[in-house]
């Protein structure tokens, strides 16, 4: 199971009187095995939403819960993939992936079996003994995804995971993530400011506004994807070329732009 629930969630950094109101009245339910992307301008609080599910931040108002249990602290049931990878530079690829399993007291035979499987799945088999600094950004992020996936978490939290990668690597990673998510579905909360990425990857896209951050609109991408059979196209550029894709993308752009215009008015 892995149902994420935001109920009337508000977040104020600093004191209630003079602090910065980052989030207000966030209501969102992410179903089990659903892939939801939050898009929004920088500073709209989308990362804060993710950090509250991860247990890195507390909600000032309302509750954030997973499977009905309010979140108190970070844990391996909610694995996080960070924008800047956050791999341990002194640990090899293998040991980076191993730490979470050791914390769960998984036996050593079982650990090596699971690590071998995830390395294989992420095309990292030959890099098990490498250190993070010896790998490209894309490879490092694969290790970070492997480190999260190997724990078999209920919930996968991805905070602009491809934001630090170059455009080509980014596309490859997006395709791989789709492959991974279809093969081994998880509840995913994916934060991004790239509209195409959100539409390509997610079942639903939540559009956020800024200061204070609120959810403006939630779009059901999955029904369109299934109706138009996006998955029959293997390459991301083919999907992005489809009329239904373009239509959705444009809708989100407009929605984000209206937001900016409203602020300037």
């Amino acid at each position, binding site marked *: 199971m892995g149902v994420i629930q935001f109920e009337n969630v508000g977040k104020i950094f600093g004191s209630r009187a003079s602090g910065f109101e980052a989030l207000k009245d966030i209501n969102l339910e992410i179903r089990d095995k659903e892939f939801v992307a939050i898009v929004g301008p920088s500073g709209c609080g989308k990362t804060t939403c993710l950090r509250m599910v991860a247990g890195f931040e507390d909600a000032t108002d309302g509750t954030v819960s997973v499977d009905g249990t309010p979140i108190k602290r970070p844990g391996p049931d909610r694995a996080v993939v*960070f924008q800047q990878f*956050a791999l341990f*530079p002194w640990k090899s690829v293998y040991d980076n992936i191993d730490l*979470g399993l050791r914390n769960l007291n998984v036996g050593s035979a079982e650990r090596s079996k699971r690590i071998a499987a995830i390395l294989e799945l992420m095309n990292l088999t030959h890099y098990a003994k490498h250190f993070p*600094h010896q790998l490209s950004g894309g490879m490092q992020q694969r290790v970070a995804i492997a480190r999260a996936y190997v724990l078999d978490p209920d919930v996968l939290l991805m905070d602009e995971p491809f934001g630090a990668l170059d455009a080509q690597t980014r596309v490859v990673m997006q395709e791989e993530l789709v492959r991974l998510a279809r093969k081994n579905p998880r509840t995913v909360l994916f934060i991004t400011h790239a509209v195409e990425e959100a539409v390509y990857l997610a079942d639903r896209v939540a559009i956020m506004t800024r200061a204070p951050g609120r959810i403006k609109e939630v779009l059901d991408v999955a029904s369109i994807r299934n109706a138009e059979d996006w998955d029959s196209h293997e390459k991301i550029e083919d999907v992005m070329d489809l009329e239904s894709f373009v239509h959705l993308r444009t809708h989100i752009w407009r929605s984000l732009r209206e937001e900016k215009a409203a602020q300037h008015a």
Partner: protein
Amino acid sequence: MNRQISLLQSIGLGFLGLACFLGFWQGMSMSGLVSNIFLPSPFEVYERFTALIDRRFAGATLPGHLGASFMRFAYGFLLAAAIGIPLGLLMGWYQLLDEIVSPLFDALRFVAPIAWVPFAALWFGTGIGGPIMIIFAGAFPPCVINAYRGAKFVDPRLIEAANMLGTPSRRVIMEVLLPSSVPSIISGLRVSAGLGWQSLVGAELIVASAGVGYMMVQGQANVQTHTVMAGMVAIGLVGLALDTALRGVERVIQKRRGLEN
């Protein structure tokens, strides 16, 4: 423009500096402006240095004195590292401990190690304990400060990563804080070794009954200024060797982390 200086050039320039210094020194002592006792010539010092390698003075040969000094140094230095590194890490991790210890530590570290000599002798004697306490006083602060800085400046994302991977918070110290601080700790140990070595020889001038410092005091008492100078040379050479060795360790660790510059 920043021209790159090759290793060979760098070594050459180092020798040039040394040659100028020795030339000036030799010139001064040959000119007759200063007496030989006042300033022994480099050549005399060299002769004395080589003679002391197998001739006893003040109870031991120069290597014997150096060995005695180095043993004390090793004890004091290791003690400082063994206490200072964990203390620094914990201060960087637990705010409360930081608040309690920092003011005291920041005041005490300005007391020069030599100032502890009377109490070191009183509390721990002039044999092994007193000198160890003095080298400890010299070597301790850099160990604490660099471990503290390492712990304070650990990437918060790495702590979060360890937390979300389910690492119990006490084990985060060993899994993240310590390894992340290693480069900073090693730099601290380098400074620490230098200061410790300096303080030790200073301490031996006053306490102890063997060691390079002791040998120098005996040289002074016998108006053998070339013996004193030979001691100074030995101290410098051992210090240089220590620093070079630790710098090598530092470089290896940085390379493993991909932090080369």
